[in-house]
């Protein structure tokens, strides 16, 4: 194979040149590839769909981690569901948290990512604050009794191994793992091409949170403009947190970012009208 052609849509697709194939693994109905592309660095695909690339993963990971964590301001305990590539963990550990639990369904994903996408985790799997649990994310939120200030659902797409992480049962069970005033963030696809996903998540998640909304950021290889992230919290003040407060927290943290900054944080909650309209249809 010399080219990877994404099979997300029927009438359009993006294609990547494979400059070097590092890894290909097929189990049951799951097909994972890691390859190098001159423009994007290492690219990981699952079932014909781009999951992450070294060139633009920072946008996705910074926005899923720093937006909830800086908004919360004093998160001590964080739960990551999925995120086997380690990029989410890397960003979480930049914060002065006490503990992070990561629940990944498949140890081989973690091992594969450490070997073939080493820059994503950048050693963070060795951090003593981490409790790595190899389990089904649904089972974990249903059966554990831990409490977390921030929960991040870094799932694959709704068709495939991560589909249960888009179910109403998952949102309900995850909510019970959230400490008072905590925030849950989930990835929600590219609404320009997948408006149904935005609507479905709204309908399934909204019953469990006082405040449910979306924020967004453009991740180039999830093409189609903005990617949406769902935001669920019972603290209705968190999403509109004062910009100066954010600036203070950001400066104090000393965290270096490449996409996130307090201005982007505040602005990311402003949705383009096509997303607003899609959500109005869901109501």
């Amino acid at each position, binding site marked *: 194979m010399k080219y990877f052609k994404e099979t997300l849509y*029927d009438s359009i697709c993006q294609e990547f040149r494979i400059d070097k194939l590092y890894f290909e693994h097929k189990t049951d109905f799951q097909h994972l590839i890691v390859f190098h592309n001159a423009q994007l660095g290492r690219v990981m695909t699952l079932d014909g769909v781009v999951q992450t690339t070294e060139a633009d993963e920072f946008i996705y990971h910074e926005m899923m981690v720093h937006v909830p964590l800086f908004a919360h301001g004093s998160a001590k305990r964080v739960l990551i569901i999925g995120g086997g590539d380690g990029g989410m963990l890397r960003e979480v550990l930049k914060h002065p948290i006490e503990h992070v639990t990561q629940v990944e369904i498949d140890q081989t994903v973690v091992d594969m990512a450490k070997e073939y996408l080493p820059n994503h985790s950048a050693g963070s799997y060795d951090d003593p604050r981490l409790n790595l649990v190899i389990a089904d994310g649904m089972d974990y939120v249903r059966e554990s009794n831990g409490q977390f200030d921030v929960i991040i659902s870094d799932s694959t797409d709704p068709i495939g191994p991560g589909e249960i992480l888009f179910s109403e049962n998952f949102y309900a069970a995850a909510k019970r793992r959230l400490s008072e005033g905590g925030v849950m963030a989930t990835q929600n696809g590219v609404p320009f091409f997948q408006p149904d996903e935005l609507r479905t998540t709204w309908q399934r998640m909204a019953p469990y949170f006082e405040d449910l909304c979306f924020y967004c950021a453009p991740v180039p290889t999830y093409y189609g403009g903005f990617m949406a992230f769902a935001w669920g919290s019972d603290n209705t003040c968190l999403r509109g947190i004062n910009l100066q407060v954010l600036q203070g927290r950001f400066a104090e943290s000393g965290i270096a970012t490449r996409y996130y900054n307090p201005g982007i944080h505040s602005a990311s909650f402003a949705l383009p009208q096509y997303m607003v309209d899609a959500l109005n249809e869901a109501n």
Partner: protein
Amino acid sequence: MADSRRILIGAAPEERARFEALVEQHGSPLLLFDSAILRQQYQALTKALPGTDLYYAVKSHPNEHIIRELDALGAGFDVASAGEMDMLMDLQISGWRTIHTHPIKKDQEIRDALRFGATTFVVDNIDELKKLTPYRSRVGILLRVSFRSDQAVVDLSRKFGCDPDEVPAITHAANALGLHVKGLSFHVGSQCGNADKHVEAIDRCHTIMQQLNRRCSAPMGSLDIGGGFPADYAMAGFDIEAFCAPIRQALAKLPDDWHILAEPGRFLIAPAVTSVTTITGKSIRHGIRWYYLDDGVYGSFSGQIFDHAQYPLQVLTDGPRRLSILAGPTCDSIDVVAEGVELPELETGDLVIGYQMGAYTAATRTRFNLLPDAQFIHLPETSAEEIR
């Protein structure tokens, strides 16, 4: 059973020695795959239908050697089940080169297909459209239309396909559900005697699509003309070029920007596979010679039941002809490969060769009596040359 098949009696010594050497080496029964013939067939059909994208009907013979050869030729693949997609995935063939053509699907099959990367789906009714609604941002739909054929050996228009008159209503229902019907598909049936039905179906689809496109903001631009390209079971020198000439003329009338697809199976693979069976025993009953083979209608000759095919047979010796029956190895009396045929006296250990045995043969064999499957042998290129 009236048996009108072609029977070849006798063989050149070298030809006989080659088959015997293959049995010596691999055992019996065998299915011998000659990839050079598959390539010839693929190239002949490509030439006979220029501008048409060929999607091999994997169901006709889902075998990795065959798939690999077609992959190398750049063929697409017509799949109808998760098992077929799994086989392609094992061979690292991307879903974008496939279309999913089964009109009736479980939700799990749709999800499996999308994970595999097949985004083109065939439907023929509104219930099926509704199943695709949750995936509407990802899929493109071909609406299967039924045109009944009196000539086809196997009429595929009875079980699947909507009436041509229903197309506008189903298309509008699709649009209302947010689904895009990108074109029409039809299957005039298998083993067509001529291309009249193809031509009629192309013309009618052309008219229907043009009428709809005049009113529609999301125009249809794909036409899947299915299969029906015959195998030369009579071994009379079938001319695909001549068969396809009227189809080419009909396609030439379509707009240049339409995508034309076809789903050949039988035409491509039938002649590329030859079966070898061995006589394991004989008897004379009511004056008729019975010869018992190690492969039969529950095995490689299953197409004689399911596909209504009669494969040309060859015995390798000659002599005075006697009324004979060639029976398969299972305990069932229906397991008869050929009846009422005039054959020379044959002996236990003699070989019987079957031609045009590539399509719907091994694909539909059963596990009855737990007899071993005929071994599939991918002939090396040079020895394949010799056998031809």
